[in-house]
């Protein structure tokens, strides 16, 4: 990346003076891996062994033979293909919009001077702290008023902007784009729009990608609100679909965790492809020093 900020650590690592990672260090990492990945693995184990896997002592730790039967049953209850597609559509729209609007507002808050800027940003940060549970009914009333119940608009439009995204982008732009860079451009005669388009956006592309990915993940895993506004199976998102697997007053664990597996596996795949960028992106956004 062209980020000025990124050059600092690279330079710092010039002369290695490290001891090799001890055996204990690797043991720690392996333990961490097991702890992190276990729930995901356990979904697969239960889904492939059947519901009573959870009530066996000792619990089975290896996958069983029933995985495809369970998945077929999942598809009998709810069409996961449609659900995954809906989730992807919502996630993509939300991610792109959040990055776009957050970068715009973030740039203004970080670099442009206008009256009330400081007050507004404090206000933005303040709203991050409000508990969201209480807003759910008034929000539904608005959505119903616009006849958006049981449409994907109901998920996408309220999520187009977040205070968090703006705050994040402001910090990124502030840290990664020195004023000199903008000054140089404006002396060359570039207008604000041009500066934004050809200087700001390329520099923050990496961090924007990470914000987009986080928005995508959050949207993917969102449950309470989609479950309220979506009514019919052709509109369900993945998490709502998982909830349709609850059987008779009680939980069929294999069916449920099989569905949860289906809802998580695409994310894991995505992760394999973009994990490296995500990891470097998280570290870009982190505090240095």
């Amino acid at each position, binding site marked *: 990346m062209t980020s000025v900020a990124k050059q600092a650590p690279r330079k710092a690592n010039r002369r290695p003076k490290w001891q090799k990672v001890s055996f204990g260090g690797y043991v720690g990492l392996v333990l961490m891996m097991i702890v992190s990945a276990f729930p995901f693995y356990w979904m697969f184990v239960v889904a492939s062994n059947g519901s009573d896997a959870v009530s066996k002592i000792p619990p089975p730790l290896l996958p069983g033979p029933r995985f495809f039967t369970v998945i077929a049953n999942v598809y009998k209850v709810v069409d996961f293909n449609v659900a995954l597609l809906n989730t992807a559509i919502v996630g993509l729209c939300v991610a792109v919009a959040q990055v776009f609007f957050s970068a715009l507002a973030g740039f203004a808050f970080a670099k442009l001077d206008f009256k009330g800027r400081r007050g507004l940003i404090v206000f933005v940060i303040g709203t991050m702290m409000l508990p969201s549970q209480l807003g759910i009914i008034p929000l539904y009333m608005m959505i119903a008023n616009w006849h958006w119940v049981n449409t994907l608009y109901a998920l996408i439009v309220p999520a187009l902007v977040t205070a968090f995204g703006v705050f994040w982008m402001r910090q990124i732009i502030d840290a990664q784009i020195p004023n000199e860079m903008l000054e140089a451009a404006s002396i060359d005669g570039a207008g604000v729009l041009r500066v934004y388009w050809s200087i700001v956006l390329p520099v923050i592309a990496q961090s924007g990608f990470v914000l987009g990915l986080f928005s995508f993940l959050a949207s993917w895993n969102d449950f309470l609100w989609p479950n309220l506004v979506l009514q019919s199976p052709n509109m369900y998102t993945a998490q709502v679909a998982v909830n349709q697997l609850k059987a008779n007053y009680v939980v069929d664990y294999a069916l449920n965790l099989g569905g949860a597996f289906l809802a998580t596996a695409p994310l894991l795949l995505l992760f394999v492809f973009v994990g490296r960028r995500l990891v470097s992106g998280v570290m870009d956004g982190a505090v240095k*020093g």
Partner: protein
Amino acid sequence: MSHVVAGNSPAASEKGRPKGSPTPWRPKKQKKNKPAIPGLRSLNGKWGYLFIAPFVIMFLIFGLAPVTYSTYVAFFNWDPLGGQTFIGFDNFTYLLQDDVFWQSIGNTFDIWFWSTFPQMVLSIGLAAVLRNRFLKGKTFWRTVLLVPNITSVLAVAIIFGQLFGRDYGMVNYVLGWFGIPHIDFVEQALPGHIAIAAMITWRWFGYNALIFLASMLAIPDELYESASLDGAGSWKQFRYVTLPGIRNTITFVLIVGTIGGLQVFAEPLTLGGTTTGGDSHQFSTLTLYLYDQAFVAGHWGYGAAIGIMITIIVLIISGINFLLTRQIAGGDSE
């Protein structure tokens, strides 16, 4: 909703800046009204409003309006399907005498404590290992750290319920190897808090480890070299070079963790299965109590009042945090 991100992602860059970044961005040294981009003065004001307009408009409609409505509700005896009576500050005065409310505050802070500090030690320790240049499979380890963040929340609830079972849960099974008698995580207060903290820690420790790692990578090697020339071993290097180097990051993780920690909701609900937070409210948190009062007991106005109190508490703590950070940053700078 989007607050999921806002409450929990400790990702945004905060107080500190990369050491290499040249000019301070805050117009402290600049005079008021001096545009950040010289030469575009005439445009800056207009453009600024234009740039934030989409965000502000959408945010007012979908973020602020519902919350404002709830604030209004706090001054009423409110039944969304029935009548509404204005009662002034009654909800708030009742709240101050409500034992469960105070208990929930205590629980929230206790859980916050148990979910913050052990996690921090764990994350910093992991980061210290991951930082090693001779570590094999760096990207793999760093990626694995984030797997808890993508695991379906509904599934995690089922799985953690099983892990913490009293008789047959895996946690007690493992504790049994060391001769520790079975613990009832749902019945006892402290074990309950620790179980909830464990769920939070599990979800975020890898994430925070990456943030600490980034911070550690920014510490110049020269510092370590001179330390080792002075005869400092790896512990002393860690203690006197690494820790001071990541001080600001520790503050940052604390602040974000506090905002998220005061809104803990899903974990205690998962553990107890009901909104009461255990038989004696021993792990009822503020947000859980809000939910319990508003949606189970039907006291909407009261729930809204709890919501306002949560906001006030977060603001106070953030204020304290901010002052502390300023102090630390001030003492730190050059």
